């Protein structure tokens, strides 16, 4: 075991993004699913850690299979935060990047929904608060309406979708800004 470099920048960046995503998602889950702040924070932490770990596993698996050229692109992005052959003007029009971003989003969304169901199974509790727990002090008309009409599964999925959408848009914008500032 002989280590000579520590890729601190990538790790610190990921930690930062995790914290941002957890903060945003926990507040959105709290609003949408009517669960307590503490529970929604715990759910957000578990789900985001789970999806990050699955992302890492997919990355490790994929990069061992990739041809050299794509591996070099990866290295270029992770180490130097730029992409070969794409300068800052073409960057925003690059179809490949948009495709990868959309794919990434859908994948993470699927992983997080799976994560939430797994979590519920482990914890044996429902992520959607039932009528008698927290809503008694909220305004009765609006909340009872939505919680009765929309079934639990759909509410969970839409909540996670909304949470994901907001947090990943923010992270994507931050990454784009970072790339654009570095390249120009």
């Amino acid at each position, binding site marked *: 075991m002989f*280590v*000579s470099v520590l*890729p601190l920048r990538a790790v610190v960046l990921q930690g930062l993004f995790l914290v941002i995503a957890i903060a945003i998602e926990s507040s959105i889950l709290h609003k949408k699913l009517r669960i307590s702040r503490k529970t929604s924070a715990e759910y957000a932490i578990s789900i985001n850690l789970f999806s990050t*770990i699955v992302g890492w596993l997919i990355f490790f698996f994929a990069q061992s299979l990739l041809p050299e050229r794509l591996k*070099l692109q990866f290295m270029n992005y992770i*180490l130097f935060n*730029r992409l070969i052959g794409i300068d800052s003007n073409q960057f925003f029009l690059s179809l490949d990047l948009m495709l990868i971003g959309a794919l990434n989003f859908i994948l993470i969304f699927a992983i997080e929904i799976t994560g939430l169901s797994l*979590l519920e199974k482990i914890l044996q509790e429902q992520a959607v608060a039932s009528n008698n727990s927290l809503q008694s002090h909220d305004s009765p008309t609006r909340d009872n309406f939505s919680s009765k009409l929309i079934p639990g599964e759909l509410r969970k999925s839409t909540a996670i979708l909304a949470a994901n959408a907001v947090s990943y848009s923010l992270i994507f914008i931050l990454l784009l800004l970072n790339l654009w500032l570095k390249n120009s």
Partner: protein
Amino acid sequence: MKQLLAILEPIIKLLQPPRFSSWQTLILVSIFLWLVAFFVRNPWQTRLIGLGWILLIVGLLWLTAEKPLWFYGFSLTSWLVGALICVAIFGRQSAQIPPIAMVLWPTISGAIAALTELVKAGPKVEIPPPTQRQKVVILMLSHILISCWFQFMFLTNNWLRDYPSILADNRSQGAFAINIDRQKDCTSRGITILNSMGTRLTAELDKKPWPTVEQWLLNASEKVTALGKQAMQKLPDRKEEALWNFAVNVTSREPGYNLQLLASWQGPSSYLSGYHLKKSCQILPTQRLPIAPSSSPSQSKTATTSVASPSALSQVKCGPVSQPISGQPKST
């Protein structure tokens, strides 16, 4: 002597077993077994040592269950036990610890910490009620994430071992990695290659008759590329071969030639479109015999005349390799 005893006293107190079945007994027994193994020959020696390890680990597990020192959500004793387990499993064949041991270390520590949460008050294992599970879940997940980060660290190290020139590009502003090994060769491969090319060029063209030199220079770019490839073959870790391009700029200069050997890097770099390195060499004719200054017309394409006579010998002088220059070289 008294001071030594005073220092050792807290440790001795720690190790004294308060009753028969406690972790201290196990650790003491394991140390005892190791001492016995010292005096015994194989195969009993390996068996005793193995048994000693097992008892030590079980004893420390017990200790973790009783006193997990929580530090910002991480149980320090579980990390210690995890390290021992990893060393015991992976490190006994050879003196070196394989990277997988370090990658699995946080996961195993997390599992141990989770186990200590599950085993409460008594040796029976029970699945905790759902209210406790959330903490265990977050604990395990965060440990696995740290394992992923360790694996990423080894991955990056492998990348940089395969392509050492990228490591040389690690400039201080926005450095992607912290170099903790001061002795590691941080120079770009290109420098080594260009220097080697310079040496080969000198060997091929120095003290040769001038017409040979001019003949050589007619095919300068192919010859230089061949030189570059030969230079690269001498190096270990040849994955970089595909990413270096070689070129040469030949300009004539009274009365000889200027050669600029160029090695340009096509791979990942902190410069926007790669960088290249230059090494300038001069080839000058020297008169071997003192003869009348010849006024033979030159045959070079430029308008200036060269005064090299066919009996002149070449002399090659090469300068050092330049600093990295951004962008790809312009070819003449």
